[in-house]
C-alpha cells in the first residue's frame, strides 16, 4: 500500500542555521511528491513538487527538496532558517490506486520551530 512518513513530530533549529524536514515514501511506480506549509490558523500552502526531472527541486520562500529514489526520500531543506519559517510542514505523495481516481496521501506533519 502507498504510504508517506514524516519521522519527526518536531524539529528545532536556530535562526540562520540550515534546516531539514524529513519525508520518506512508499509507492509502486513513479512518485509524485509534494510539500505544503501550514501557518497557525491557516490552510495549507503549496511549497514545491517533484514530478520528474532534476532531483533537486526549488520552491517558494527559499525552500528546496531533494528527491532520492534509492532511499525513497524527499527531504525539505533550506540553507538558512528564519523565525518566520516556524510552521507545520506536510509531505504528500500521489496515491496510485488499483482502481478509481488518483488521490493524495498526506504525512502526519512536522512542526518546525526556528529559535531566535
Amino acid at each position, binding site marked *: 500500500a502507498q504510504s508517506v512518513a514524516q519521522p519527526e513530530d518536531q524539529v528545532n533549529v536556530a535562526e540562520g542555521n540550515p534546516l531539514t524536514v524529513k519525508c520518506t515514501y512508499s509507492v509502486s511506480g513513479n512518485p*509524485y511528491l509534494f510539500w505544503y506549509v501550514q501557518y497557525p*490558523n*491557516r*490552510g495549507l500552502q*503549496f511549497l514545491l*513538487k517533484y514530478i520528474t526531472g532534476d532531483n533537486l527541486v526549488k520552491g517558494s520562500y527559499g525552500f528546496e527538496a531533494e528527491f532520492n529514489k534509492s532511499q525513497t526520500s524527499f527531504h525539505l531543506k533550506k540553507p538558512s532558517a528564519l523565525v518566520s519559517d516556524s510552521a507545520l510542514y506536510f509531505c504528500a505523495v500521489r496515491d496510485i490506486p488499483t482502481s478509481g481516481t488518483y488521490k493524495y496521501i498526506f504525512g*502526519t506533519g512536522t512542526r518546525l520551530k526556528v529559535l531566535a
Partner: protein
Amino acid sequence: DVKVTQSSRYLVKRTGEKVFLECVQDMDHENMFWYRQDPGLGLRLIYFSYDVKMKEKGDIPEGYSVSREKKERFSLILESASTNQTSMYLCASSLVPYYEQYFGPGTRLTVT
C-alpha cells in the same frame, strides 16, 4: 492567484444538528476536496469531486455527504453532527487531481 474560501472560520454546533460547510473556488478548477485535520493524524480525505454532480468517497466518508451543483462550489454536509466530528475541516481545489492543491483557510468545527 487561486482563491479558495470557506463559509465560516469557526462554528459551534450541538449534537444531532445538520451542519453545512461551504467552499467556493474562483479558478475554474475541475477537482475539489474535503479533508479533516486532527493532531497526529495529518489530513484525511473525506470526499472529493472531479466534476459537477460527480463525487467519490475518500478514506473517512462515514457520517458525511457532499453536494456539487456548480463547478465553483463544493459543500460538505454532516447529517447529524456528533462530538467525534469536532475537527478542523479543510477544502481544496486543483486543476489536475494529482497535482498541487490550493486550500481554503479551514473551518474549526466544535460539536457539543
